[in-house]
């Protein structure tokens, strides 16, 4: 019996031990009327048959050369990362409730928290949230609580990923929070100062600052942070963690001690694309907000002999202790992804993170130059960017992308999907994984596709 070790003798002895004639008796408390008929599921297959089925399906899912970013990024993941992260002792452990039997996971999480705090220049970090978008939702709820201004507005720039904004809406809808979107400057692709100034003195609870924003554009984070601080608002930084090898970390934004909360998606740190997940959300904060943080936190402590050990701590924030008053309902998080990220960051080190970020930036710059050399292709915004950039095509982007896909290129994200009036907009990304030949191949293919007469 698949995965069930009981021999006929075992079953007999166990039933006798319990004192029931057959296994069905054990279910006698379930009212007969509720018992379901045999379910209509596909028949059980052998591991061999399932393997063949899944291999066939996976083989069909070839990606081609991928220039899509838009919240998920193709990076080289050193082979050691998943070779170690998928060891059974990491993979098949539960949340480390019994500290003494979970020192592996716990010490690792302490290191993970340290690395994320270091990247973001914050004082503390949690042990992960589900993903970037839901993490932003948690950060917004945390900011609202921490602001001491629960009726205040939460300002979110429209230059935040459309899906992230959708998730924030879902997560705040039933909370009577006022979430307001701030438009971006159609020239620079950044948050307009003017747009912000409308809210001056209007009880702003929090401002979300994406860096880079969804268009890859770099926001003027210092100015925005200072503006928010002046309004007494909590600053929630939404960042790509890999970019922090190159970009100023949230903890240092502005002139008044930086952002209060930093969050984002950890996918660029060693997590495969996997059609969208599992990834992980990270959340770091400054010391004063510590007890408002959602999610698990690991702390260092000692045993009676003074030996160092690690343990889940500050649990009074959490649902299993505080129930309806918890800082979040989160329980299971994305543990294994933090294992991979910790290994990934350890292999890269400070230099590796910096050079990878710089290389991604340079590759995208080169790609931008090659693509805008095609007649009719221009930049959509003129601000500085990190490793994504928005282009304007001479025609709607979506059908062009379909054609590119057939030619083996996943060409980017059609901005029209998230911004209906930007339907000729194309968001492209080139990470360190792309060679110059790849960039040329993209440029040549795009030129060809744009040139083909419609028929």
């Amino acid at each position, binding site marked *: 019996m698949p995965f069930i070790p009981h021999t006929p003798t075992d079953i007999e002895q166990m039933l006798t031990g319990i004192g029931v004639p057959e296994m069905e008796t054990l279910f006698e408390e379930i009212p007969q009327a509720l018992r379901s008929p045999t379910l209509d599921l596909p028949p059980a297959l052998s591991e061999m048959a399932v393997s063949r089925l899944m291999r066939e399906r996976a083989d069909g899912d070839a990606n081609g050369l991928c220039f899509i970013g838009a919240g998920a990024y193709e990076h080289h993941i050193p082979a050691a990362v998943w070779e170690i992260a998928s060891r059974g002792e990491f993979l098949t452990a539960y949340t480390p409730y019994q500290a003494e039997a979970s020192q592996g996971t716990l010490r690792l999480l302490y290191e993970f928290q340290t690395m994320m705090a270091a990247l973001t220049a914050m004082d503390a970090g949690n042990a992960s949230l589900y993903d970037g978008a839901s993490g932003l939702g948690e950060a917004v709820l945390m900011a609202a609580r921490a602001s001491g201004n629960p009726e205040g507005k939460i300002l979110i720039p429209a230059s935040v990923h459309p899906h992230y904004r959708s*998730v924030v809406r879902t997560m705040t809808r039933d909370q009577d929070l006022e979430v307001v979107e701030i438009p971006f400057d159609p020239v620079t692709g950044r948050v307009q100062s003017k747009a912000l100034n409308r809210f001056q003195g209007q009880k702003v609870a929090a401002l979300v600052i994406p860096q880079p924003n969804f268009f890859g554009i770099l926001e003027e984070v210092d100015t925005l942070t200072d503006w928010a601080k002046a309004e007494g608002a909590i600053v929630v930084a939404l960042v790509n963690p890999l970019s922090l090898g190159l970009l100023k970390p949230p903890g240092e934004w502005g002139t008044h001690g930086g952002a209060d909360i930093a969050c984002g998606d950890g996918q660029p740190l060693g997590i495969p694309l996997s059609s969208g997940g599992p990834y992980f959300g990270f959340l770091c904060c400054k010391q004063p907000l510590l007890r408002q943080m959602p999610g698990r936190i690991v702390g260092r402590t000692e045993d009676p002999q003074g030996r160092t050990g690690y343990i889940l701590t500050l649990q009074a924030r959490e649902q299993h202790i*505080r129930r309806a008053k918890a800082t979040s309902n989160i329980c299971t998080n994305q543990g294994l992804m933090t294992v991979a990220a910790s290994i990934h960051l350890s292999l890269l080190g400070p230099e590796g993170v910096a050079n990878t970020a710089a290389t991604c930036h340079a590759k995208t710059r080169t790609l931008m130059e090659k693509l805008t050399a095609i007649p009719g292709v221009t930049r959509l915004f003129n601000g500085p960017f990190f490793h994504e950039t928005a282009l304007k095509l001479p025609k709607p982007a979506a059908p062009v992308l379909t054609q590119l896909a057939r030619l083996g290129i996943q060409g980017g994200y059609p901005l029209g999907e998230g911004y209906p009036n930007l339907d000729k907009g194309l968001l492209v990304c080139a990470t360190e994984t792309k060679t110059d030949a790849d960039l040329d191949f993209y440029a040549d293919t795009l030129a060809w596709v744009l040139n083909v007469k419609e028929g």
Partner: protein
Amino acid sequence: MTDTLFDASRPGRRNGHHIPEPLAAPPDIPEHLRRAVPPLLPQVSELQVVRHFTRLSQLNFSVDTQFYPLGSCTMKYNPRSCQVLASLPGFLNRHPLASTESGQGVMRCLHELQEMLGEIAGMRAVSLVPMAGAQGEFAGVAMIRAYHRARGDDARRVMLVPDASHGTNPATAAMCGLTVQEIPTDSQGDVNLDALARAVGPQTAGLMLTNPSTLGVFERRIGRMAEIVHAAGGLLYYDGANLNAVAGRVRPGDMGFDAVHFNVHKTFATPHGGGGPGAGPVAVSERLAPYLPLPVVKKTSDDKGRDWFSWMSEADLPESIGRLSTFAGNIGVLLRAHIYLRLIGSEGLERVSGFATLNANYLMTRLIEAGFTVAFPDRRATHEFIVSLKPEAEAFGVSALDFAKRLLEFGFHAPTIYFPALVPECLLIEPTETETKETLDQFVEAMIAIRREAETNPQRLHTAPHAVPVPGAGVGRLDATRAARKPDLIWKESFNR
């Protein structure tokens, strides 16, 4: 070995082969937006990384190495084939926004999973998006609110939960802007029906229930409860954490529930990863279907009449509560659940709940015979059951925590302790169907041995664990109070100086 990797870090040590060459030109980014000081990340060799994390892994208890009867968590065997097949390059390397053509394989799997979960739940429609049980609960309760709101019935702001409910239930209700009201449990572990009847009213948004309950017994009068709640205009939410007990035998939909989440990292054997990722797909009845979180896979036909799978968007499901994740949830985890179900089929699913229940009842019987007190001796155990160590606590001054810590030294992970809080000094024990009778027997021996120690040498229990049988774990019982009083949450360079 208690050092962190930061202690092993040395300036100038690096893994040349992973680091792109530094660029000749500085990046085309304004100075004031750039980082000045490099982040404090470890500077170590690849061997150091591999050795450090390999040794860390060895400090863990895990299903692959120990019996792990953690109640409510279903720590059963996670088939390696699910792990390996879900990690095929075609699946791992696909970008979430890649063309729909390039995703027919993964979407076909997800669609099959939707169908299978709908069948298992006895429900109409499924969204796979929620990334854990708690997010599934959020989706469910948000849908219930959306339903009431759509009917102009938005005054329903109270969520009922049994007093023994899991913490995520009330926490979720609160995240959905609801007030929580707890319903007491009777002496047999069932919800007090009179109290329930008194609690419902026009303010009732719904009831959240785990069945079998967190007390390890099947809520027999669920039919009546559903009638009471529905009659009052509320909806019923099924917390699927305990589905391993009844999967394939009784369906939440047939019990009268309107929404359910699955913990695939419990029932469907996806590994727990030391804390995740899991997945918490939701299934709902007809009336909640319009509110499902996005995206959902739909199946149509292409121009040649072949199946065509694609994501539903807001246009398809305009009343959806919206998105819960950046893309479509923990797809890699869902693939594992899909593979598991394809491996076992409906017969296998019935066997799962059958043998999970057999193991729990056998273990309960043996512990009763050994003189332990179980919380509900007159009830059948489901896939788990509760031992109360109150008698031992009173007689020998030892606690459930003491037992738990001492069990670690016997090479067993401890059961869940102090949950549900209703039962004093409780151990919630869930052996799962994948463990052998021999292992259960050994666990009983250990429990007996520990109780004998409690009688003769209780101090031995208070100070446990002394030496967890894991190499170099080398820690005794850790001080949780100290940890919380002065939180030390990140490594600091000063430690090393």
